């Protein structure tokens, strides 16, 4: 029996030996590796890092080894994460299935489902998308209408999902469907997993204000889904959905710890575009003050992420802290891009072409993209509802429902 400190030593040595130096650098945009039927690597080091971590079972370090995981205890997993942070290792791949669906299948799936779904997921062979939202079911997710009707050994699915991230690039979808149209709305929902290559499925990318996007509307026209692809009990999907959304928030805050560097460093951009302090007008000085204040707020956020990690490791209750992270981060990003757009002036108003630098065009897109962040994954208003009710325990009001 090796102790935790032995494990730390071994893990550190293994990471030092196996994580290529180029995978210990800040990750530029577009260099995320997505697991799936076809995995694209930008260069050889990405492949090496992906394969080595996969072969260790460390895409899912704390899943049982029998389902393809690394079989680590919670403590060992925390050590692995700490060591990866210490070395600045990039995540070897990104996979919604592992973060969100996997834990739900582990908890609620049958033995056959675990054996069928988890090992390929753990090897990064399947790319998953999330089919929850519908045109008329956003914050009020439980009002979803996409129907699944039982027909012998399968369900027939009809309806449409929207905002499905990478709906056109994913291999499988986990989706919420209505299996009882008359029961109270939370009690007629089930969770299905569906092969995106099934006949009758069509995914259409949606153009956003920032331009082409990875979000799709997905249409289901008499799609047959085998009955054994129902996860959990029939009409019992809402409980699973709530568990899944919790895993989503946790994953998002953990993902935040990797601190994917933004390319838009406030202070250096301000240094480039604003006149030197000696040549500054009062307006320039006021704007520079706003830049500094924004940088300070960014620092307050990253210190809070650090504090949350430390408190969790000290076994304190961090549910209150966790509940603010998405809200604060997405709202701050929005504010930050407003300040940056002010700093760039008309250089932030480009759409395409040679008249603008690539970084300027990227900043404009990022400013437009930031608007989505306070809507996706539970809007800011819904986050505030959650904090008010669950953390501050304020009374339920007649007029305010909590939302997704």
């Amino acid at each position: 029996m090796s102790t935790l400190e032995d494990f730390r030593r071994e893990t550190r040595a293994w990471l030092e030996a196996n994580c290529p130096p180029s995978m210990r650098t800040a990750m530029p945009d577009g260099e995320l590796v997505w697991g799936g039927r076809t995995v694209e690597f930008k260069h050889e080091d990405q492949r090496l890092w992906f394969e080595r971590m996969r072969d260790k079972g460390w895409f899912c370090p704390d899943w049982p080894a029998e389902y393809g995981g690394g079989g680590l205890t919670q403590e060992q997993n925390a050590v692995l994460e700490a060591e990866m942070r210490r070395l600045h290792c990039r995540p070897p791949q990104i996979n919604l299935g592992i973060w969100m669906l996997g834990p739900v299948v582990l908890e609620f799936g049958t033995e056959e489902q675990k054996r069928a779904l988890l090992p390929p997921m753990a090897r990064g062979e399947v790319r998953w998308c999330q089919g929850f939202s519908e045109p008329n079911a956003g914050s009020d997710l439980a009002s979803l209408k996409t129907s699944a009707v039982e027909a012998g050994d399968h369900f027939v699915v009809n309806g449409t999902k929207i905002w499905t991230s990478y709906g056109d690039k994913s291999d499988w979808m986990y989706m919420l469907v209505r299996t009882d149209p008359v029961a109270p709305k939370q009690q007629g929902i089930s969770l299905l997993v569906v092969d995106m290559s099934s006949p009758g499925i069509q995914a259409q990318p949606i153009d956003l204000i920032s331009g082409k996007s990875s979000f799709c509307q997905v249409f289901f026209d008499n799609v047959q889904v085998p009955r054994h692809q129902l996860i959990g009990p029939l009409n019992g999907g809402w409980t699973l959905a709530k568990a899944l959304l919790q895993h989503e928030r946790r994953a998002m805050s953990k993902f935040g710890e990797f601190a994917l560097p933004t390319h838009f460093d406030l202070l250096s951009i301000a240094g480039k575009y604003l006149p030197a302090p000696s040549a500054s007008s009062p307006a320039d000085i006021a704007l520079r003050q706003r830049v500094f204040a924004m940088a300070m707020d960014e620092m307050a956020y990253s210190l809070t992420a650090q504090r949350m990690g430390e408190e969790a490791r000290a076994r304190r209750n961090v549910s209150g802290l966790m509940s603010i992270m998405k809200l604060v981060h997405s709202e701050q990003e929005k504010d930050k891009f407003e300040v940056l757009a002010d700093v760039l002036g008309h250089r932030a108003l480009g759409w395409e072409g040679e008249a603008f630098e690539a970084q300027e065009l990227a900043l404009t897109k990022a400013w437009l993209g930031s608007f989505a962040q306070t809507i996706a994954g539970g809007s800011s208003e819904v986050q505030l509802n959650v904090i008010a009710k669950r953390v501050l325990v304020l009374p339920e009001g007649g007029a305010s429902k909590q939302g997704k």
Partner: protein
Amino acid sequence: MSLVYSEEQQLLADTAAEFLMAKSPVAAQRKLRDAGVAEGFDAALWREMVDMGWSAIPFPEAVGGLAFGCKGLGAVFEQIGRNLSASPLLSSVVLGGGVIELAGSAAQQAEWMAALIAGEKRIALALDEQPRHDPAAVALTATRDGEDYVLNGAKAFVADGIGADAFVVAARTGGLAGERAGISLFLVPAGAPGLQVSAMKTLDARNHANLVLQDVRLAAATLLGVEGEGFQALDAALDRGRVCLAAELLGATQSLFDATVEYLKTRVQFDVPIGSFQALQHRAAWCFAQLQLARSTVMAGLAALDDPALDAAARARMASLAKWKAGEVAHRISREAVQMHGGMGVTDELDVGLYLKRIRVAQASLGDGDFHVQRFGELSPQ
């Protein structure tokens, strides 16, 4: 650099919480105010704080301190803020003692440190002259005359200046107002001829003073450190004070916020608790989120004061971050607290107003938000 209290620091915080709740609750501050106590604090309470070792916490053992670190002291200041407890811990120990520890000669330390730590003497820092804090703006002059220095000018908003045994006075021996070079620090005894001390009654009912110095003649031995090079030690001591004050602001804000959430749950209008109105829920939830951010910056500021690996600029930057964020959040939450209490919020009967006033003063002391944003920017690598 850890952003949580260690077990020992937490223990200290718990002890301080119990002690202050019993001996120095908000009601006691109200009594001090109503009685018009000139010193603004209760001398017997201060003695007990000293007996518990609080005044020795931040200093190295060599000068008679406990070497427990500023993070431990921050844990105490947070509790002080919660109860609005008044004491000369910030003025005499953190600021006065800090300057002497950082700039004083062995002889000056021998003369003062033990007495400050034992609470037998008090020192106040006389720095600000303009309405807004800016240490480089010192204009009060100290002119060499033979073996002596002669000081002329005025100081304002000197915390705990009434009844202090001596003042650390920042004076200009060279350069121009606005420059860091040319600032010198002097230890001026309260009885020095030509020194006038008068009360400046502030809205938090604490002890503040105005000083006028007219041909105050001082022996060269009262100079702390090197002539014209006082700024560095002054700023380092100020940073300790700024972060401790940020911790006090955090504690005060936390208490005020807790009381406000409680009020939202109990005050009924339209047959429902007002806390069920989403317009108030969202504002309260934002206050909670901001309070968390402020706490992280205060912890980072305290940790930075204790971290010998940081360079002075990095430490100063963290101190400014903490004072700025804690001040901004305190300001926001104090305004919300008054509003959410409705008409009761503007009465003197509730404690809300006492918190509002103390927060306003603490926020303006040792640098307001605008000051610290600018300072953070100047200290940032560009």
